């Protein structure tokens, strides 16, 4: 039961940035409580980093392969990322990347629906997939002796999808169901709404992750295949395998399973070539569609620098001082101290720094009782007003650096190691800093200072730059009049 609670803690963060497929919904309150954890040093021992030997190689087909050898773990984690997500779509294509992520599970020329899942689960793993704005991810962890068989199934699934019209038609109802669930989740619904008003009209980051209902209903196998041909190419993929494996064997096997593909349709320009537009300021919208009966969630979003820049860790550090990350258990933050503990207006406060290849997004989320909603929104905005004039101290900077180191550290599991390496590759973060926490720490020491925090607060998180989404409960029908 504890596993469920833990999954949920992880899930809530991921949901803000990713469209998760086939994972249990939030069950935080059933069966067992989430652990109340008080990490007093910068790192909980249960969250230790790995010291794997990491090798990177680009094979002749163009696929980037990263192998992290962790001998003795007896497990292997496979994490394949295709550099395409909703951030690469046009409005007409919007939803296609997510639809393809679903359809790939439906089979290949030689595998019928259900057979991919069956093959992987007979090997002791469960294949999971997620679509984000910058990439689509397929990941599994399983006993190490089965990594070759699992990779063979995944390669077949990715490179030889069937896209049968009957499967496309059947999957539409599944995706429409998923979209309905997303509308009941304040973070998922709120993230799409925030992105929709925070980003420039021409920016694909503005588009909803799963597309529109109209696009989903109109999807055809031809459209899916065309999009797949453009983006699902080895040179557009990064594969990470971490665990009890040998790099030489992995490279040989990947080379065999992911051959070069003839160029059928040219890829469009990557989003890093686009220039950021002027920020949208002061926009506000209300969604009245969630499942919560008595609570209102208010999200405030700020556009932030791209993940690979020196300014990114400064903003992330600032966010860590203000509020707990949504997966950080019981950690404290200034907003929580003020809105939950002192003013008693909020039930919870979380923050996410959603790192992206283009501009990133910082999202603060506060949930409170519906009757306090107006006061809560005013109090939250007042906190950002105060922030602009705040002068941060050396202690603040040291605390922020510790927070970031803790967030960056791997918990040492094979799947976390693989995910961390794959994410860094997609976001084009420095390989040296990803592999060597010492180098990352040195950069933090250089860039996260009282002065940079003070400047970033004024530049990125001033109240007038925030976009606001208020998520209200649905309008309830009037109760019947009882005579």
């Amino acid at each position: 039961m504890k596993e469920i609670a833990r999954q949920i803690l992880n899930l809530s963060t991921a949901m803000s940035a990713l469209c998760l497929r086939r994972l249990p919904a939030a069950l935080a309150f059933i069966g067992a409580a989430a652990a109340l954890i008080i990490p007093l040093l910068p790192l909980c021992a249960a969250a230790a980093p790995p010291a794997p030997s990491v090798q990177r190689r680009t094979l002749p087909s163009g696929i980037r392969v990263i192998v992290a050898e962790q001998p003795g773990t007896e497990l292997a984690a496979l994490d394949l990322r295709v550099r395409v997500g909703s951030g690469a779509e046009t409005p007409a294509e919007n939803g296609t990347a997510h639809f393809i992520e679903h359809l790939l599970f439906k089979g290949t020329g030689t595998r019928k629906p259900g057979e991919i899942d069956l093959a992987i689960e007979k090997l002791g793993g469960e294949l999971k997939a997620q679509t984000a704005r910058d990439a689509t991810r397929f990941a599994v962890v399983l006993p190490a002796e089965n990594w070759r068989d699992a990779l063979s199934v995944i390669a077949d699934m990715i490179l030889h999808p069937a896209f049968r019209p009957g499967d496309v038609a059947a999957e539409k109802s599944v995706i429409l169901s998923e979209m309905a669930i997303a509308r009941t989740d304040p973070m998922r619904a709120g993230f799409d709404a925030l992105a929709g008003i925070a980003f420039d009209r021409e920016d694909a980051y503005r588009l909803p992750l799963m597309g529109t209902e109209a696009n989903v209903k109109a999807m055809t196998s031809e459209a899916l295949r065309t999009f797949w041909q453009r983006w699902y190419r080895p040179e557009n993929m990064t594969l990470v395998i971490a665990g009890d494996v040998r790099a030489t064997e992995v490279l040989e096997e990947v080379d065999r399973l992911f051959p070069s593909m003839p160029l059928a349709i040219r890829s469009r320009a990557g989003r890093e070539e686009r220039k950021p537009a002027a920020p949208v300021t002061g926009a506000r919208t209300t969604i009245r569609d969630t499942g919560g009966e008595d609570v209102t969630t208010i999200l405030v979003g700020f556009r932030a620098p791209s993940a690979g820049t020196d300014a990114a860790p400064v903003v992330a550090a600032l966010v860590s001082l203000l509020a707990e990350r949504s997966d950080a258990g019981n950690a404290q933050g200034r907003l929580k101290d003020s809105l939950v503990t002192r003013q008693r207006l909020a039930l919870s406060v979380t923050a996410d720094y959603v790192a992206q290849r283009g501009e990133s997004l910082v999202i603060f989320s506060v949930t409170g009782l519906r009757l306090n909603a107006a006061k809560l929104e005013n109090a939250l905005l007042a906190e950002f007003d105060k922030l602009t004039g705040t002068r941060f101290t050396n202690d603040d900077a040291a605390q922020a650096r510790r927070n970031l180191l803790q967030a960056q550290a791997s918990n040492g599991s094979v799947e976390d190691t693989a995910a961390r390496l794959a994410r860094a590759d997609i976001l084009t973060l420095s390989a040296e800093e990803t592999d060597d926490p010492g180098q990352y720490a040195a950069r933090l020491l250089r860039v996260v200072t009282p002065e940079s925090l003070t400047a970033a607060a004024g530049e990125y998180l001033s109240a007038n730059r925030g976009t606001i989404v208020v998520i209200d409960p649905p309008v309830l029908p009037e109760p019947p009049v009882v005579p």
Partner: protein
Amino acid sequence: MTGKKQTLSLQSLVSVLLTLLLMSLSLTALAATPTAPEITRLANGAKLVTLYDPASPIVVIDVFFRVGMSDEAQKPGMTALITRAWFSDGRFRTANQLRRDIGAYGSGVGSSFGGDFAEIWSISESSDAAVQQSAQTLLFNLVASPGFSPEAVASARDDQLRAIALEKANPLASTLNRLRQRVWFESPQGRPLLGNADSVSHITAKEVQAYYARFFRPSRAVIVVAGNVTSARARRLVEQSLNAADWSEAGRPAAPENLPAPEQIPASLREVNLGRPSPASVFAVGYLAPGTLKRELPQWAALMVLDTVLGGGKATRLFRLRDDLIPPEQPVGYEIRTLLIPSRTQSLWTAYVIGNNPTEATRTRVLALLTALGTGAEPVTDEELVRAKAYLKGRHAAERQHLKDRSYAIGWAETMGLGARFESDFDTLIEAVKVEEVMQLGRQMFGAAAGAIVSTR
């Protein structure tokens, strides 16, 4: 001045990094050198489980109590409240002193709870001084001499009331809470784990202290010490810390352990509709299942296999209902899973579906699928059994990569009555499950017995 500050900060960062490297060694070594747990009984009645791993540079001390809903009587939510208030103070230590103590020796402390247990743990480096301090803080100051001052309880109460409000806003949590109530009709197991706003808001510090003294006692405790500590040294450490606080059964009011009698789901309570307007509907069906007491151990292994055949993973009967078998004009939903909520005498097994589709059609299909298994019309196949076993063993290994996860799993199994052997012999026990045992369980659960059903619209 700035230069000096930066040097100090750099030292602090380097120290963090060294700690990180140290920890990583334990993780890799751990998986390669599994150790069998040793179980002994202390003089005060507590059970001690040790898991020696000489390669691990960390030590986990994990204390479980068999306490929960059956003991809460008119104060539902009390056990959860204690796990929130535990770290606020001690009888001999203020909150700040506790914080300093913990900061001095290690990496973290935490607590959790379920329907039948409460847990508190501490992790330290494996040096003598660190382990000594960890044991003293966790066992002497928190377990044997907790504070529960009015201020600490008030703060925990506020936290819990906030959690209750958030739970109420979550459609799936509300559905499953109601399902508990329907399935465990007359049992305290049917109450929400967090309690309700009315009961929690009236819990006083005196009541917390009395409840703790009565139920959080040695005879109900399982203490796990895992890591680079021999069994003999672990025993000495634990006894020193607990004896110093005179933590014993003496002078405590009687607290016989209540094991709720097995129940049948009353037919008149089978179905309820919560009527929550929402774009997504939830449908859940629950059945009583075997408990976790040791006498049912083979049944528990068979239950895990049955649960996996039906809903563990995606190549399952329920998930295939969504993906492969239903024509597009008759959609089922998006998320189709099962959930096993363990309890000592009787567990709750549930299947749930979330989606935007009509509940009636979904309900019919899910119930037909379970009935087909219950009547034997659709027997479990060899291929299903092979997949379920491989899936369970793979997940078991993947979820125990950290020493803390292993100490939790062993402590939980011992506390719930399965016994530590269930953890150490997991693969063997799962591999030994036969198709006939799974089918027998299916008949028992879905054949004659009625399920309880909760939906949101």
